[in-house]
């Protein structure tokens, strides 16, 4: 059940993201996207590592 819900959420999120790829939206500005995604991914990696070191 939980697995299905999670899968459905991944699909829904991917759908919105794929749709966002077709439009020009300033607040989802593609030129800033790489830096923003890298920042979030890095911050999450640091957070996960922080939990393990405690």
């Amino acid at each position, binding site marked *: 059940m939980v697995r299905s819900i999670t899968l459905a959420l991944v699909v829904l999120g991917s759908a919105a993201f794929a749709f966002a790829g077709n439009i020009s939206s300033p*607040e989802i500005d593609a030129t800033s996207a790489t830096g923003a995604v890298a920042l979030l991914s890095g911050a999450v990696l640091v957070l996960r590592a922080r939990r393990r070191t405690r």
Partner: protein
Amino acid sequence: MPRLLILFLVFAAELVAISLSVDGQNLVSSPLLTAQVLGVWGMPAIRFLVSFAVMGCALMYLMRREALNTFRRDASQSPTQPRRVLLHLTLFGALMLLGPRLYAVNGAKSAALPVAFVLLGIGVLFTGLAALAPVRIWLRLAKSAGATWLYAAIPALATVLLSAAWRSLWKPASLATFTLVQWMLRPFLGHLIIQPDRMRIATARFGVIISPQCSGLEGMGLLILFGSLWLWLNRKEFRFPHALLFIPVGLVTLFVLNSVRIAALMLIGNAGARDIAANGFHSQAGWIAFNGVAFGLCLVSGRVSWMVRTAQQPDQAIAGTQVPELVNNVAVYLGPFLAILAAGMLARSLTGGFEWLYPLRIAAAAAVLFSYLPEYRAMNWTWTWRGPAGGLVVFAAWIAMEFALSGQPAGAAPSALQFAAPTARWTWIAARAFTAILAVPLAEELAFRGYLLRRLTTSDFGHLNPARSTVLALAGSSVLFGVMHGERWLAGTLAGILYSLLYRRKGQLGDAILAHATTNAAIAAAVLLFGWWKLW
């Protein structure tokens, strides 16, 4: 040199060659290709294939790591098949010759051309895979993947089908945003001009139109994707279905923050800073809000006891004993780079057309470097002459690609800089050069070579000799490094490969840092001496 590395370099060279000879933008919009091959279903099919490939690779990495390791071992031990490589290169040559003819004004208009182009592309892909590893090894990998392909195909298909459904949510979401922004602004701005027919909110000095794209649905979609992946990756820690609350809480917060963003935009513009409101804050605030909500939820979710299986212990003093805190090795390697990224976002959001606050990056990187000073002191910073020499090679390649892909890099300095007072101008230039030559090489080499190259090889990256990092890790970390360089992704990827090879050679990060610093110093010199401002 390992066989896989040689093949990877061949593929990288092909990428360079095709980027130089085929204009991707013109190719995709070529009427001939659209009419004969893409048609109505062409683009959705491409979107499906891309989603399928990305999800398939991610799931294989997450769920079938052992199968991937076996594949890598078998592939590196199998002998090279020169005939396959030759066939691959022949088909690739034909693809390069055919590509420009599809969009050339005076090119041939035969209907067979686009079909031949697509078939050649498929041929290039399959012969490339066959050159990488024999068919039987690929089949073994496919067999060991089990149902992973199905797990990737179903969401990829659903992604394509559902993407259009989001459009129906645009109108109600933008209406709700329009109302919410009015409520937020009324206490601050007495004389609001409201035009519901145009979805416009204005004062006598500044106004905004809330278009459907401004409703924040795309950010919400990203948050659903991010949140569900976070829950999935940490599923052993969370209690379900309680933890699913993570998603709606995040969505509501982000939706409200999007309205706060538009209200703040109005206030900034109304206060007279129209340039900052329209050019800086407008786009950056969306990403800052998204990152803030996503990271905030990750941080908070682990501390809410009814959401997690085992509540986290406080920092110290468990059962009356002092527990020494271990150093977060990931933070040591990624910290300076993340600080530079965060400072960059903040600087761009607070400035308009020209980024006067660029030096914020130095302060941010210095703060992190200072906080982990003992760890950095303990690292090996030795270097050899190969560092600066490699840096000059990268510089030469960078400039050659700039001329080949974008033409002459000469250009006028930004007008804000030209008309600034000399002190302000030279302070900014000094800070820009200092960041490029010292802060960025240090931060990026720690992140991409010190961490990513080794982390993609093994989870215990701190104890890995860089010389033992895999070719796949070298390729992956270099491509990600290239992606961080935007339009110059190809030059960035090649630079990443060379810096990685320098690091792998003797395991000295100093060589990679010095190479990177030399490249950036040479670029800074070219900007200042020859006026090649497009390089900055």
